């Protein structure tokens, strides 16, 4: 029994050490010295900036994991070694949103934090106006559409866009005799699915997720030349969700025709990527450019491309949507506002932001960086633009961030699950009722 208890205690201690290592991290200068070069020294860091922030500790909250977290840690280490500041990284991972909600409720935010797509709808009241910063003058138009408030203010330093569309397995399409670059409407997409299924593949690898019911909704409801145009009603809270049936009917056809995996309702995201990479499926609906890098890491010999969302009818606009990617705000009540501004300026320099983009596979959004950006996300987008030359593609802000109140994303996720569970006509009606009620709830709460 004694031996057994000793074994158990040793294991518990070992696991505790490992577990504790993953949370909040503070690096001493000694630890930083070796990694300074990896993060890249900013071009404007002259002799007057060296150790100019000695003694300052910045708390930075992020939601990075894996390679993205490693890259961000290296960037912070390099910043520390140049400016002499200490950066404490709060890595909340998948608990980021809930932790930040608690910190907002307590009005006690980190000095710098990732906005994860919500710089305006959720974090604006807690964020410092950064409109006067140099990097704000360098934003591409596509970025300004995402982060600029109606009064022209900008509350975020955004070094990249998160770009969303469909992902295509070209090898599967070729084997099934489908030309994915000829697809312009969702009806043509369904025709391609029929051919792919007939060739023995599963057409769509997606699992039920808010992205499926939200990110492409604009191609039915709000973009130019689509089957409905309800943008205004959505924004002023008067929409009754009836036109949403167009999108639900599209999924009803796909589900009835068994274009998804039989166990689509319970596939997790890793499994979805694995099946797509293994050549079992042809499309994933609503993915960002980063998933191309994930698929190639799972199958280096695969052939994948990024694609725009098709239009709801001929003559409608295909779409690529983008939202905040790597974007950082400063807490307006931070005691280290000046140091935080220096940190964000450092992040915005092309050589530093490219290090981050290389890991996150997002797409640069500042003109200076865009001119030299050859990271995977930007490449995927460039390849798409080349493959879909001649298509009528619109570039829009991510749909829910533009048209829906904060809190609606979870309703969209639940709605997608409901849809996959019951795609009969009465099931579709239940989804619409659910979304209408949810929209009413969060619109009032907001």
């Amino acid at each position, binding site marked *: *029994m004694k*031996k*057994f208890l000793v*074994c*158990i205690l040793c*294991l*518990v201690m070992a*696991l505790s050490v490992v577990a504790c290592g993953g949370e909040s991290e503070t690096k001493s200068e000694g630890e930083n010295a070796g990694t300074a070069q990896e993060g890249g020294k900013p071009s404007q860091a002259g002799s007057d900036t060296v150790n100019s922030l000695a003694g300052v500790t910045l708390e930075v909250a992020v939601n990075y994991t894996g390679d993205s977290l490693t890259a961000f840690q290296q960037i912070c280490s390099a910043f520390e070694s140049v400016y002499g500041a200490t950066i404490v990284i709060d890595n909340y991972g998948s608990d980021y*949103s*809930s932790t*930040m*909600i*608690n910190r*907002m*409720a307590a*009005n006690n935010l980190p000095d710098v934090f990732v906005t994860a797509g919500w710089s305006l709808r*959720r974090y604006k*009241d807690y964020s410092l106006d950064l409109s006067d910063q140099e990097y704000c003058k360098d934003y591409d138009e596509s970025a300004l559409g995402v982060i600029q408030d109606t009064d022209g203010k900008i509350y975020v330093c955004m070094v990249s866009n998160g770009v969303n569309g469909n992902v295509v397995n070209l090898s599967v399409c070729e084997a099934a005799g489908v030309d994915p670059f000829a697809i312009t409407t969702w009806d043509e997409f369904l025709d391609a699915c029929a051919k792919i299924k007939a060739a023995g593949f599963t057409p769509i690898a997606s699992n*039920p997720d808010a992205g499926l019911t939200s990110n492409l909704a604009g191609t039915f409801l709000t973009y130019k030349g689509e089957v409905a145009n309800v943008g205004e009603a959505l924004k002023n809270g008067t929409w009754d969700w009836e036109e949403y049936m167009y999108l639900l009917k599209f999924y009803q056809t796909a589900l009835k025709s068994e274009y998804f*995996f*039989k*166990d689509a*309702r*319970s*596939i*997790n995201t890793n*499994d979805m990527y694995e*099946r797509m990479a293994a050549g*079992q499926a042809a499309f994933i609906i609503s993915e960002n450019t980063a998933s191309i890098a994930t698929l190639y890491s799972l199958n280096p010999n695969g052939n994948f491309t990024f694609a725009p969302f098709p239009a709801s009818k001929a003559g409608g606009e295909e779409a690529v949507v983008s939202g905040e990617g790597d974007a950082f705000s400063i807490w307006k009540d931070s005691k280290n506002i000046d140091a935080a501004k220096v940190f964000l300026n450092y992040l915005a320099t092309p050589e530093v932001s490219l290090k981050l983009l290389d890991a996150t596979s997002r797409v640069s959004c500042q003109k200076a960086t865009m001119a030299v950006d050859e990271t995977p996300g930007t490449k995927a987008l460039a390849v798409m633009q080349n493959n879909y030359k001649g298509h009528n593609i619109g570039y829009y802000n991510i749909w829910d961030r533009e048209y829906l109140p*904060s*809190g609606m*994303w*979870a*309703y969209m*996720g*639940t709605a997608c*699950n*409901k849809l*996959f*569970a*019951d795609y009969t006509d009465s099931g579709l009606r239940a989804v619409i009722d659910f979304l209408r009620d*949810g929209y009413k*709830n*969060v619109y*009032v*709460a*907001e």
Partner: protein
Amino acid sequence: MQKKLDRKYLLFMLPAIIMVVALRFFPIGNALRMGFFDWNGYSQDMNFIGLDNFKEVLGDSYFWIALRNTLIYAFGITIVKNILGLALAFFVNNKFRGRSVIRATIYLPVMISGFIMGQIMYYFYQYNGGIFNEILIKLGMEPVYWMETGLGATIIVLLTTSFLHCGSTMLLYLAGLQNIPHELLESARLDGASKWKETLHITLPLLQPSMITSVVLNLIASFKIYDIITSLSGGGPDGGSTSLTLLISRYYFGYNRAGYAAAIAMLFFFVIIIISMPINKWLSSRKVEY
């Protein structure tokens, strides 16, 4: 003199009283207060709406599904874990080569996060290429979509949690078995009692304290089940395997409806009280005398 002594004792109790009020009564009171507001969880403004949240919860089908699942998890896991833990404790209480390794192996999953164990077990149950279905196919049978329905997913979560975490129950029973006085068992054997009668009339009755501890601890832990559901079934399909803790978290942090989530939490609190009071009364009436 007596009054002075009482005051002195009260002073000694003060730190504990402060802790209980600050860490127990205040959060519960605050949650109850939040239940009367329409609040997104982070805004500095809260809108008083009286009992509206509580009324809405009672008409929410997801609440009733989650309540049903929570009760299934709580009682199902407690029963299965106790049966398994007891059987394993009897097994590893015997002397045999490699006993320590087997004990450690059974206990090991308890120390690993439920979230990670759920991720690992996902690859056992998945329809397409899952380990169980691969075995069925090898045996010439049709693969089974284990998590096709909410009830199916709930049972999968229940069994997985019970099998993975039965090590802690085993440990409690093992300690109980090792505390049974040897002379009692020896005298029974001298009186000609069979192994079965020895177990039924001596070992099991004397294991009652361990059983009470195990039932109470497992019931509390199973009411709070969260992480393994998140990674194994995600609460799906269509909320069919969601527990109340997961539902509260979804409403609070996902839907930004903190007031509504607090109302569910308070109803959950009362459900636990209603269930635990008779159980507690029954268990405390059971006494073991040597």
